[in-house]
């Protein structure tokens, strides 16, 4: 609860001594009586009280008798212990020792149950319901209320995903307080008065400013749905069954679910989750409790997007391309591994490896060792998005094995500067911590194209930068002429997004900024496996444990640890170079992990490379463009069917266990070990645990590191007439394949709109609200428009909401596109 070992409580605090149920207890000053009572082993019943929300005293269930408030006088009536702070000498009597408190609690419970329906058998909360449990432990047992209960039409859909049964509500205001205090999305509120009081949705002024919600164009003036990225948390903290998810409604009961703690696979935050399954099928996911990482909150993506691994296109058996018919035919595991090894042996020395960014650290390590030991190459790159040599140098110099910044630091930093990072979309757990920090005085600033809703919610200042020119904006911060001062100092944190790889000089400028101000740097990638892949050396210039490829000592160290004669010394190719070399025939074979072709920097080149390569081995969970082009397809386990460790953006290890035991569902480690053994160059481990042991034995590199990049900021480019610069990123809820199979969750996505300044729209002849089209030589995409505070000549559009900009247009953050009025011709 609040009294936990943290940096704050490790420092000496003022203790207050009071007596609860005749037991003397000393607690830190400011502690609430309800929590102090927990320390003496008394659980006071409560509904509205939540340790992570501000006290409100709404449900009145936690009444206690206070005969002495510390000043010799008592309160004449029972007091709500969840809003009462301890005082020296206070005497508290709970229901354990006080008949007055017990009678008061029974009375409150009876009143709460007056209008509560007796529909526990059909209620999703039944069996795990605080109201049910506390009515049993602290209630009267029998109701004296014989009249007709108040009813409402049910259920009310406050969003496509969240359903509200108003008659079950006890008006504890946990959901509305969460939305207001934690998520910052006050789309639900208590409306009406007296017996009619209820949770409801109403017209909001918020979306008009950001234009990305339905009805923002004025088409509907009515209630706005509860479209928050964090709406699922309200379902979990509801102490009754008033809020339920459409996804889980009536699907299961808590007593036939098997719960397994796990880690979310959707972003680099490593949020703790609980996976509930029944008979081999995951029924739901809940937020776990980890004060260091996600507290008790997760994003809706972490909560609802878990059906992607059981879609119809799931690969179940190995497939090998028949040389006669050219079709992929099912094969046995030994046969497929032998076929993969034979093809790779044929292409010896000319193999590129693209592991993808969604792997566990153990799987990424297996790829890294496989490339170096079995394939004898450094042609391995986990980056399946725009990337640069500058980024690789930055990752090697300032990210690998560095643990400078932790999530908790975002609460205590003086300033947090976001560069090329939209945390609400790309790292939701981090966003909630950042918002908590901003409510406690942390100053937030962002080098970005415009003020997003996420930035407004953390009260952030915008340091406007055109896409591709983030470097100059960073150089201008607290420069000698002091043009932009956001108060960066040694207690500040600079968070860099992966988008900066497409902005030349940005990483260099960030390093210069950190050295100038003393601020700490952290890199926040989008995918769960990105940081793990950096640590395990899935880069062309970096070996596991931050060992530079160019350092002979580091290579010798690694060769000794792996028991091989040498590790390849030649720096490898990056993703784009691997694909280009494969397309030109310089590389003859590719080993591809979980890679979506449309995510790659140049999808057309990637398709060409897959077609041109003599031999492609694909390790995938579901059928994709890569598996369709592959010669050997080896199905691997999704995170739910394997154990492993994700590495968060902080560098924190997040191990998780297997949830479902599916025979024949093999990890990447096991599959790569199998191919390596067929090739006669074993990896030295076959299991996830073995890979982790090997990594631990290896340890981090303590020698000299690569120098950080130091490129100058590029000259500002002026786009030609009719052309604009595109700013874009992936939104949290979009069309990504890891969100497949959850239509109701998808329906809560923000509306895809194109944002630009009024002048930019006017120059293209677009009325705000009308449809505009952005196009390149490859394709076009049309969006409704909205005015936002972007610089002139810049437009923003979502990366994969309705249309995949990189796949359809080949356009990325910083690309130039044509902007025209009207829909696509």
């Amino acid at each position, binding site marked *: 609860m609040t009294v936990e070992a943290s940096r704050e409580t490790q420092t000496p605090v003022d203790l207050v001594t009071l007596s609860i149920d005749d037991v003397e207890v000393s607690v830190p000053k400011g502690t609430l009586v309800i929590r102090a009572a927990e320390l003496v082993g008394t659980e006071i019943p409560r509904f509205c009280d939540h340790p992570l929300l501000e006290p409100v005293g709404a449900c009145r269930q936690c009444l206690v008798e206070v005969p002495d408030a510390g000043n010799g006088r008592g309160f004449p009536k029972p007091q709500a212990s969840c809003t009462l702070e301890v005082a020296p000498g206070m005497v508290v009597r709970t229901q354990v020792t006080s008949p007055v408190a017990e009678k008061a609690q029974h009375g409150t419970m009876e009143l709460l149950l007056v209008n509560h329906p007796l529909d526990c*058998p*059909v209620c999703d909360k*039944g*069996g795990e319901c605080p109201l049910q449990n506390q009515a049993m432990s602290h209630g009267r047992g029998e109701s004296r209320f014989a009249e007709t209960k108040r009813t409402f039409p*049910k*259920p009310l859909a406050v969003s496509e995903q969240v359903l509200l049964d108003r008659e079950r509500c006890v008006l504890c205001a946990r959901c509305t307080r969460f939305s207001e205090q934690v998520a910052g999305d006050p789309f639900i509120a208590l409306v009406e008065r007296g017996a009619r009081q209820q949770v409801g949705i109403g017209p909001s002024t918020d979306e008009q400013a950001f234009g990305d919600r339905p009805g923002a164009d004025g088409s509907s003036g009515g209630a706005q749905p509860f479209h928050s990225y964090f709406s699922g948390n309200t379902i979990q903290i509801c102490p009754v069954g008033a809020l339920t998810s459409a996804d889980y*409604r*009536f*699907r*299961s*009961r808590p*007593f*036939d679910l098997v719960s397994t703690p796990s880690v979310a696979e959707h972003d680099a935050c490593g949020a703790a989750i609980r996976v509930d399954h029944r008979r081999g099928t995951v029924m739901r996911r809940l937020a776990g409790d980890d004060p260091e990482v996600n507290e008790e909150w997760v994003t809706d993506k972490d909560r609802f997007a878990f059906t992607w691994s059981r879609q119809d296109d799931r690969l179940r058996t190995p497939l090998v391309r028949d040389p006669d018919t050219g079709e992929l035919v099912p094969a046995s595991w030994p046969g497929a591994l032998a076929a993969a090894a034979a093809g790779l042996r044929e292409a010896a020395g000319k193999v590129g490896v693209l592991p993808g960014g969604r792997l566990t650290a153990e799987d990424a390590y297996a790829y890294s060792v496989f490339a170096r030991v079995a394939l004898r190459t450094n042609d391995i790159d986990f980056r399946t998005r725009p990337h640069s040599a500058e980024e690789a140098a930055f990752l090697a110099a300032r990210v690998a094995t560095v643990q400078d910044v932790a999530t908790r630091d975002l609460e205590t930093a003086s300033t947090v500067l976001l560069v090329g990072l939209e945390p609400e979309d790309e790292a939701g757990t981090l966003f909630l911590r950042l918002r908590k920090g901003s409510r406690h005085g942390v100053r937030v600033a962002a080098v970005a194209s415009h003020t997003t809703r996420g930035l407004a919610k953390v009260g952030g200042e915008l340091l406007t930068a055109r896409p591709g020119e983030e470097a100059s904006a960073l150089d201008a911060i607290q420069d000698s002429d002091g043009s932009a001062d956001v108060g960066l100092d040694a207690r500040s944190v600079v968070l860099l997004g992966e988008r900066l790889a497409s902005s030349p000089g940005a990483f260099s400028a960030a390093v210069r900024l950190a050295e100038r101000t003393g601020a700490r740097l952290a890199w926040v990638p989008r995918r769960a496996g990105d940081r793990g892949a950096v640590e395990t050396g899935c880069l062309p210039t970096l070996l596991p444990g931050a060992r530079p490829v160019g350092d002979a000592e580091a290579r010798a160290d690694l060769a000794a640890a792996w028991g091989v004669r040498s590790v390849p010394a030649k720096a490898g190719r990056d993703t784009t170079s691997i694909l280009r070399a494969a397309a030109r025939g310089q590389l003859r074979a590719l080993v591809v992990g979980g890679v979506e072709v449309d995510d790659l920097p140049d999808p057309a080149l990637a398709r060409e490379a897959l077609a041109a390569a003599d031999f492609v081995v694909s390790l995938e969970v579901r059928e994709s463009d890569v598996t369709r082009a592959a010669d050997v397809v080896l199905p691997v386990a999704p995170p739910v069917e394997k154990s492993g460790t994700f590495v968060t953006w902080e560098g924190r290890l997040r191990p998780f266990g297997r949830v479902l035991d599916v025979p024949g569902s093999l990890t990447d480690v096991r599959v790569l070990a199998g191919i390596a053994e067929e090739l006669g160059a074993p990896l030295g481990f076959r299991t996830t645990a073995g890979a982790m042991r090997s990594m631990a034995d290896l340890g981090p590199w303590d020698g000299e590191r690569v120098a950080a990049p130091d490129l100058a900021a590029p000259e500002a480019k002026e786009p030609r007439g009719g052309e604009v610069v595109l700013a874009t990123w992936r939104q949290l809820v979009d069309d990504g394949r890891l969100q497949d199979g959850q239509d109701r969750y998808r329906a809560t996505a923000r509306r895809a709109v194109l944002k630009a300044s009024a002048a930019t729209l006017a120059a293209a002849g677009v009325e705000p609200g009308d449809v505009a089209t952005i196009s390149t030589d490859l394709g076009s995409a049309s969006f409704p428009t909205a005015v936002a505070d972007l610089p002139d000549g810049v437009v923003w559009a979502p990366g994969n909401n309705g249309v995949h900009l990189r796949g359809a247009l080949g356009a990325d953050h910083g690309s130039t596109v044509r902007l025209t009025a009207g829909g696509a011709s």
Partner: protein
Amino acid sequence: MSDTNGGGSLKETLWDPIAGFGVTFRTMFRKPVTEQYPFEKRPTAPRFHGRHQLNRWPDGLEKCVGCELCAWACPADAIYVEGASNGPSDEDRFSPGERYGRVYQINYLRCILCGLCIEACPTRALTMTNEYELADDNRADLIYEKSDLLAPLLPGMVEPPHAMLISDDHHDYYAGKTLPVVEVTHGSASTGDGA
């Protein structure tokens, strides 16, 4: 109690050895109690715990709401239930409320016919019949599905899915407001109100 003296009385030596035959001779003149099962089937006691039945409302909709309390109560873990939501349209309505039991299985290889599930059922959807012939020559057929357990359609009942035929209003539906009043004529004639 037993006599520990040696020898024995006259009664013990003469009468006792033939006394047991008295039962035999007496029974020879009585009607035999042997039941000629399976050629003659005799009714069980009225509250005999036999095969389960899933009951219906008078319009044919199912009473089961898929709450799984029966499965929870079952000491033999013989019951498996999955609930589901009645669809938005009447073509998808199986029970009068929001929820119905989509899957309902009782495994009679496990069931001990104790009746705890009946006590747990909040809607009186699950009751027991007097049918006791629960034997088969294979295991699969002894897992009874919902279709095997549902009560037969009586006159006036319509096979779900369909709309709530008694009343659209839930209070009136459960009170059976529009049902015809039926004269009950056994014993002294009395009148039911259909509830």
